[in-house]
């Protein structure tokens, strides 16, 4: 059985007809070709497939797209504006916070949501916010450093 869907992804409105059982993750990757969103378990355990819905991190492998119609969905492809990297992306690249890079999109979006809510997070608050995102390469150290650097730079810009 298929259903008609209208999703707003990265500021663009997209219409599609997809099987009802497809998850948001599958629709993003397979129907919208937004392959920047990765899958690590498809059971809601690893955080890899995190996207933002109205600014809040959600696990796209557990969400049915019909639930998020009419809401603002943001994937990693939507983070850079007009080719200008988000400060988090810039900091992750500069500090070596992405090794294999597979968990990176989910972590970037989770961190973006954190910094929207809390412009001056402590290291413990960053750890807490990212505790649901597994990374096997970095030992998290450079990820935490990069979030802190981005937060610092974003405060600089906004001030």
């Amino acid at each position, binding site marked *: 059985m298929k259903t008609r869907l209208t999703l707003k992804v990265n500021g663009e409105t997209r219409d599609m007809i997809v099987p009802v059982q497809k998850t948001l993750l599958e629709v993003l990757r397979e129907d919208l070709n937004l392959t920047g969103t990765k899958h690590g378990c498809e059971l809601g355990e690893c955080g890899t497939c995190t996207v933002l819905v109205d600014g809040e991190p959600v696990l796209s492998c557990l969400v049915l797209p019909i639930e998020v119609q009419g809401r603002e969905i943001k994937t990693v492809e939507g983070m850079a504006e007009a080719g200008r990297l988000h400060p988090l992306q810039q900091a992750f690249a500069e500090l070596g916070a992405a090794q294999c890079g597979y968990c990176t999109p989910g972590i970037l979006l989770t961190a973006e949501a954190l910094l929207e809510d809390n412009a001056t997070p402590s290291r413990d608050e960053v750890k807490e916010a*990212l505790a649901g995102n597994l990374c096997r390469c*970095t*030992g998290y150290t450079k990820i935490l450093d990069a979030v802190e650097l981005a937060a610092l730079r974003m405060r600089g810009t906004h001030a």
Partner: protein
Amino acid sequence: MKHDKFSVIGRSLPKIDAWAKVTGETKFADDLILPRMAYGKLLRSPHPHALIKRIDTARAKALPGVYAVITGLDLPRVKFGILPVSQDEEALCVDKVRMVGDAVAAVAAVDEETAERAARLIEVEYEPLKSLMSIHDSLANPDVRIHEYGDGPNIHKAVALQFGDVEAAFTGSHLVREDVFFFEGNTHLPMEQHAAVAHWGPDGKLTLWSSTQTPHYVHRLLGKILDVPQAHIRVIAAPVGGGFGGKLDPFAHEIAACRLSQLTGRPVKIALTREEVFYVHRGRHPVLMWIKTGFAADGAITGMHFRSWLDGGAYGSYGVASTFYTGALQTVTYKIPVYKFEGARIFTNKPPCGPKRGHGTPQPRFAVECQIDKAAEQLGLDPADMRRRNLAEPFTKTANHLTVSTMGLGECIDRVVEASGWREKRGKLPPGRGIGIACSSYLTGAGSAIYWNDMPHSGVVLRADRSGLVAVLCGATDIGQGSDSILAYLVAEVLGIEPKDVRVHPADTDLTPVDLGSYSSRVTLMAGNAAIQAATRLRERIFEAVAKKLEVAADALVARDRRVFVEDQEDRGVSFAEAVVLGESMHGVLAFPGSYAPPKRAGKYKGGGVGPSPCYSYSACVVEVDVDVDTGEVKPREIWIAHDVGRALNPLLVEGQVEGSIYMGLGEALMEEQVFRKGVHKAPSMLEYKSPTTLETPEIHTILVETDDPEGPFGAKEAGQGPLLPVIPAVANAVHSAVGVRIDETPISPDKVLRALDLKRQGKPARIGPDKLPLFKFPEARAVESAFGQPAEKITERPFGHQRSFAK
């Protein structure tokens, strides 16, 4: 780390692919979508050990949307395996399954869901056999055979080597300790599940894109087991989303995708589920170890006898190498004048173990370092001082004929002792808090290929374009460690350009010279040396042309800041792009090869090929922990590590490798375990298979020590595996320091700590660990003279014109 001599080396630069990775543009294997692509699925055995009596695919084939269904009968009946000595796998089992998760059939369909439904419609009739779930089971039931080959019933490999008379050494020792340890198996858990896309073109040529760490070995294998000449097969390694050794074997899904593509005339993708990845495994072997060591009163090691029993799982994989590795590197860290090693790998009906970060060496390192801690306590010595007293000598040979070159472990120990406040803290911390130390060494690349040959282990072709761009073609595979970036830095350094002016084209068997793969910490050294050689050859030709134009001698020129000019006269020169044009005008196309093969240092005894390496890295690690005596929980507070990396080509990337190693070591020390109940994985999900999150990972202090190794590219040694090794015993030793209990078995989980604390309260020996050893007779040890203390041989002749890249 910045060195005046260098312009790129030593700088903390972003990786060349960092921008693609932070924008989601990196195309991993499962991100490839080709027109008309079909989706494949494997049907896997639910039985740990069974005969296959019948497979009926009719219902699956009849399902609308199904393009093809295959069994092992649709593949050539050729067994394969990564090592030439262990050809024991089938992509799709025909007669017998040996583990839950063995593939028996494969489907290609219009989409993944249809493929999955079709796979469920395949009828397989099994006749279950007695399954063997442990080393004990497999040795106790020689009448039940998992394989028909090996060194005895269910014994894949049994080895015994003796380098000098250990019994005589023990007789004269002040202290002789015998200890038993168990290291539990665990798995790589890469964030990316394996995926492969095969396209068998209408011209009869096959292309496979795969998340593999070793496209060359996959290429060789496909040539062996498919009905197509290897010359018509192209293997491209997609960027790998985490490997850690888990993507080093050829896999059933790769082979099935190729055959399904041939039959359907469509590209076929097979992406594994997370559960399948747990069963595919090839991770850390569970190893039971017995170690007997003699010590002098001052703590000097007089001799060591080491025995290991490896639970290999259902197939050979890299297991023969793993077995030798459990005995190979003990001697590289500390002076061990005489040494005996006996090891056996036993088949069981569980997913096969293989290489995981540190391949076969974290287990013995755990045993050795915990035993030294116990000996230091008995001898009344500071464990840091005792280790320092035992350091292997640089530029000498070990008892088992390995050659130690540069050796920075002494400095590593001093630096972590200083940074951690070891002297102030040891024995003076509040109750429940403890501090432990351990050391290690690791290969910078295996000295032998997995198949014997005289060809390079790594090759590079470098092409300079008239625009000034330099293209690097190299078979190396970037698995996140940054190997593409390292090649760009090295080439940029030699040519005086920026890494941005270099484009790296990796891991494509049609286009790139062979690099053996991303394993054994070999790529920076081997591909790096090949890249330096190619770049040096290019530079010579360019200099020749520029020298003619400027009417100076070629050796008066330097390349720096994207220019080629007369040294100390920057205005007398040309831009790099102009230099390329001059070079191409004089010589024709500017394309140059570079090749590297490690020094041939294999000891002249059977098994001597496992352990030699161009050089070894060294690490010393101090861990401070809190142990909760009510819950048994061990919380690392801080970790200090000093790592002898030879030279940090990019300190940022080296730190990243060290931090990642520490993290993975902590997971193995405290929580990770790959365990089975009746052949079924107890925790095949990321929630149940516990691994550290941000909350469990403490602050890590990384200190890089540089020793400028003569064999390394600009002096560099490995960084990606060695730093994992000392973490696990350092944690165990810190737990003992905190609460006075010995946990001689990984992981050091709360239940074990609580049981040990109970024993302590009852006044019993406060130790948790194995006490029984298998009844097993090792073969007669082959006696080889100890080479301990002999000077390292001077290397005079090198293949392929390799020269030392940088002299101090």
